[in-house]
């Protein structure tokens, strides 16, 4: 992973809050109504392929573990709504061969309001042993 990739932004990716996928999430975790907070992960996965394909960043997903995750909501997601997901590389730190990258994603609604910001810290383990 290249620390110089810190600050990279990626083109917005459209994402629809599909009611059937929301229902599957609710059923799996016993939530009776609304959009479960961590459903945002589905939107993150819509934008994640661009990050993985970024050769300048050079993130090796086969060596990645998920370090931490956070969500901040301005309002809850609404079933059926269409959002844009904008990803950026917020920070990169390398310590002794282990890379720490924080990927932030803003979910923007049709009015241009950021309804949720998601932050994922991924840890890329050192090669070899």
């Amino acid at each position, binding site marked *: 992973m290249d620390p110089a990739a810190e600050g990279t932004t990626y083109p917005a990716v459209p994402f629809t809050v599909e009611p059937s*996928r929301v229902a*599957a*999430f609710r059923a*799996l*975790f*016993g*939530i009776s*109504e*609304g*959009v*479960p*907070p*961590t459903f945002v*992960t*589905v939107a993150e*996965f*819509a934008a994640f392929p661009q990050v993985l394909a970024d050769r300048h960043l050079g993130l090796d*997903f086969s060596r990645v*573990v*998920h*370090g*931490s*995750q*956070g*969500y*901040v*909501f301005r*309002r*809850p997601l609404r079933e059926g709504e269409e959002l844009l997901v904008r990803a950026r590389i917020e920070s990169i730190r390398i310590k002794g061969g282990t890379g720490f990258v924080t990927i932030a994603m803003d979910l923007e609604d049709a009015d241009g309001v950021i309804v949720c910001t998601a932050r994922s810290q991924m840890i890329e383990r050192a090669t070899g042993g």
Partner: protein
Amino acid sequence: MRTRATVSVGDELPEMARVVTREDVKAYADAGGDQNPLHQDDAFARSLGFPGIIAHGMFTMAHMAAAVVAWAGEPAAVVALSAQFRAPVFMEETIVAGGRVRSIEERPAIAVLETWVRVERDGRTEWPVKKGEARVRLA
């Protein structure tokens, strides 16, 4: 939604336990979109040094979120949620989500919760989620 008058610092969330099964984890991969073989293929997981597949960190966090939502009354009351993943979760283990009210903000009324997910393994407590936090809007 929970009302301000009913919440005090130190209140504990009812613990929520669930056994993590292979079927759950596969269903989660399909619902959540993370098809990493670490969560489906035992041979692949062993190549990374695990005894077998592990649950997605986000599976564990979603379970923690369910405990918070149950306490909050509805998903819409949860205005922030975070977790640090500290230990893997293996199949057929029982994960237990819990939390407590650390502080309360006024105007707007927000309960700040510390949250966690623990698992008992080989006579020890491990923490798949440590230092979780949730911010819950109160009426």
